[in-house]
């Protein structure tokens, strides 16, 4: 009985769990109001990320490219950033924030982004756009470092750094959600409202789920403002729900402006949600209200109907964003399941030092593997060739074939989940998320039992 933590042995990637850093930065950019990012690189770095967002949300998000062509690769491409900023500002009068997101190509050719921003600030913006508030923010996300997860982390930090400004204490809590869905933000804001806590939410993305309106006015875009970002320096504290997606910004605010921070755990499952509420209570001094005891009770009631009858000892593999994977594993264990394989899809050296992983290593009483720098072949190969037995896979849509080909039921969770309808609308965080996850797991297992004729008669009486 052991929990084995190690890195994938192969050097390459067969079926990646993550895409590269610029995607994470682009995800952050769409959460900001009046913001269109320019990705400085080849056009594919934007076109495909926009397509990925469109696949996941079934909606469109605007992100621009500096459209690197051959000549730029040879002679440098800062000129294309200058043109891009000008064209974007001229045609989008509402734009106030332009993150300039680098990629592998423009980091390798060594374009001086800070230099060109300086030049634009002192030239174009003063001359052609005098009187207009425009913020150009450098975001360095070379694709050959980290992953979309670290790209998200870097971008939140870059934006907070660019804007945070100490003025007067605002009495608010900064809530840095990490890479979540609109449904998660709704659930988190509900918990804040129940606690009567005023918070600055990075990022306000509920509006990603936008309506199709008779007057055609529906637009999917985040609503965190420049003012919100500025005000982060004046909060009573920061709670970053995900260590690897927003943790850097929380630490920055603590170091620079003495805003105390709590980092993680992601409030997935009953126990982690309890922890989150306790953190809110400690930071705000406000009590956890009776109404939340009731909400928690409803979740526990629902899970009690499922856990020891259907979930106990079910073997689960989980892949995706590290905070999500770890928290899901913790929740699964609380629901009597056995996570036997966790796949963390990049080479972040921090995983080894993560207390949550250490706790798994110290306490898990069955055989469990945690693979760092993993790809989806680590899952597929174990099932196909190494005899891994699984009852359930949890992860995002890119892993769908591992489930389909091996006839293992799969709960879609994380990003992206384009092969199931509307999942971005449902939370995985909070008590509401705990209910959704537990019931999604149950219904997925039930459907599989019926499809495979595997004791499907159990459900005749339940």
């Amino acid at each position, binding site marked *: 009985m052991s929990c084995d933590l190690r890195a994938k042995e192969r050097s390459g990637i067969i079926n990646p769990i993550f895409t590269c850093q610029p995607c994470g930065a682009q995800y952050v950019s769409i959460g900001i109001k009046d913001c269109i990012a320019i990705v400085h690189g*080849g056009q594919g770095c934007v076109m495909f990320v926009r397509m990925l967002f469109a696949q996941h949300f079934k909606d469109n998000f605007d992100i621009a490219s500096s459209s690197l062509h051959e000549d730029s*690769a040879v002679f440098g491409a800062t000129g294309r950033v200058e043109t891009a900023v000008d*064209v974007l500002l001229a045609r989008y009068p509402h734009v106030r924030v332009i993150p300039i997101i680098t990629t592998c190509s423009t980091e390798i050719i060594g374009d001086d982004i800070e230099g060109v921003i300086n030049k634009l600030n002192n030239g174009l913006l003063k001359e052609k756009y005098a009187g207009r508030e425009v913020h150009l923010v450098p975001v360095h996300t070379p694709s050959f470092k980290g992953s979309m997860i670290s790209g998200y982390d870097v971008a939140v930090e870059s934006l907070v750094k660019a804007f945070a400004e100490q003025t007067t204490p605002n009495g608010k809590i900064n809530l840095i959600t990490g890479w979540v869905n609109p449904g998660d933000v709704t659930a988190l804001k509900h918990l804040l409202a129940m606690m009567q806590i005023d918070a600055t939410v990075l990022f306000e993305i509920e509006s990603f789920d936008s309506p199709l309106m008779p007057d055609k006015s529906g637009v999917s875009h985040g609503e965190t403002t420049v003012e919100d970002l500025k005000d982060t320096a004046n909060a009573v504290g920061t709670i970053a729900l995900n260590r690897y997606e927003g943790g850097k910004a929380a630490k920055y605010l603590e170091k620079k402006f003495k805003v105390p921070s709590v980092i993680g755990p992601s409030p997935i499952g009953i126990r982690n949600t309890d922890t989150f509420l306790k953190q809110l209570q400690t930071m705000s001094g406000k009590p956890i209200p009776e109404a939340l005891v009731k909400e928690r009770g409803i979740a526990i009631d629902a899970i009690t109907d499922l856990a020891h009858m259907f979930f106990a000892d079910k073997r689960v593999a989980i892949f995706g964003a590290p905070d999500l994977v770890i928290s899901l594993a913790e929740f699964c264990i609380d629901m009597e399941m056995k996570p036997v394989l966790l796949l963390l899809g990049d080479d972040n050296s921090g995983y080894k030092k993560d207390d949550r992983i250490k706790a798994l290593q110290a306490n898990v009483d069955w055989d469990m593997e945690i693979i760092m720098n993993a790809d989806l072949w680590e899952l597929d190969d174990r099932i196909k060739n190494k005899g891994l037995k699984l009852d359930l896979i949890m992860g995002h849509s890119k892993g769908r074939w591992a489930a389909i080909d091996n006839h293992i039921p799969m709960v879609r969770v994380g990003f992206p989940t384009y092969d199931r309808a509307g999942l971005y609308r449902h939370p995985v965080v909070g008590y509401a998320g705990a209910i959704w996850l537990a019931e999604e797991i149950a219904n997925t297992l039930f459907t599989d039992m019926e499809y495979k004729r595997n004791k499907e008669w159990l459900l005749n009486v339940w």
Partner: protein
Amino acid sequence: MPYHEFECSTCIPERKSHAVLKGEEDDLTTCLPEGHLATIPGTISERGCAYCGAKHVIGTPMKDAIHMSHGPVGCTYDTWQTKRYISDNDNFQLKYTHATDMKETHVVFGGMDLLKKNMIEAFKAHPEINRMTVYQTCASALIGDDMEAMAREVMKELPGTDIFVCNAPGFGGPSQSGGHHKINISWINEKVGTVEPKITSDYVINYVGDYNIQGDCEVMCDFFKRMGIQVLSTFTGNGSYDELRGMHRAHLNVLECARSAEYICNELRVKYGIPRLDIDGFGFGPLSESLMKVARFFGLEDRAQAIIDEEVARWKPELDWYKKRLTGVKVCLWPGGSKLWHWANAIHEEMGVEVVSLYTKFGHQGDMEKGIARAEVGTLAIDDPNELEGLEAMRMMKPDVIFTGVRPGEVAKKQRIQYLNAHAYHNGPYKGFEGWVRFARDIYNAHYSPIHQLSGIDISKDDFNIDKGFMTRQMISDVKLTPEEAHVEGETPYTGEFDCVTPLRTKTYPSELTRSTTAQAV
């Protein structure tokens, strides 16, 4: 030139020559936008990169090869599971993708060892596959890794394997089109002629420029096989790596998408003297004419005619059912490249829809020439459209349905305009006679969707009816038809199956058709 200047683009005057509004007197000499020029940064263009043109569009549909990109993981991830190019070997090419996962240390010290290790690992992971295509990315191009050298080393170390290298980094040209060109030329230079194919028919073709989207290619090959023609290779939909190495033994190259694959046909003509015949699998008329063209080359007109007669008899009444109901429906034909002219006239003639706008993301002027030649007066044609121009065009042209990609389709949705996926199709295949009916069915289902009707109602302001619990599509579409028009003996909506492709895979074809002596007997 009747250039159309978009209001949103007056501040970028160089855009003006990229759109035209076709007038009464216009022909190609007076009405043609510029094309295939460098993209203006910051316009929010819809273009992709040359890497995706090579790897994603043309390379990956090859069904029996490991597909690997040498670079950071993103290029691979981003171009994986975004297409519907299926295959008859359980979709290996859709399921597996490989990245060498280039990191900072490789950028500094070189990534050739990494590439070699990756190639060996990948062959080990898929022992049943011994063919591989490897693609350069921006990063590996900029650091100058010699990928061919590594491929040669690995082929030597692992006898029986074969590796194809394509150097088409993302920044190579204004759009994905540069990548199409590069992979075409690399394939003919590196791989064609290295395998001697088994010739089993007196009539031998390569079917080129079809990527088997939802089974298009398999549908077309069914027609060829019914004529007794051996399809030596398909470039590259449902294509086999080794079959594509034997392209040089075909008697004829039958070319579908001239935008992405004319280069290899031209080279096959120069190097091996194989003639090129451009065809069109979309639409009853163009497809019938295309099958006859191929037949004429081999003297198989009778067989082609028999197929055409059979197919038309089976499917024409269903197409007519839709045509009646689609007549006058306004559509924007906004695909990536060549579909703008493959579809332009055919959908007007055969489905009755009015094409009010054409655009192309990566097409060249030649594509626009063909598109505009086939377009009606009043059509707005746009090269390399961007987000705001697309919106402005929608407001100006007021289309009912737009044929475009997934993401622009979502933009259209918010404008209360239905969209059909022009790249991956909604419920394809769209090639073939049955496929064309499926296309008409999809347009009909989009346009007459009861939910679409409801989307225009503002319940806070409008006086809306509450007398109905539902509407069928026909309750909406048939309002404008007389009872005599609506009910014609034999005409019905589409009666085919959800999956019309899989049954083709187990179909057998009489071998005697492949010999020219029997041709005379038919």
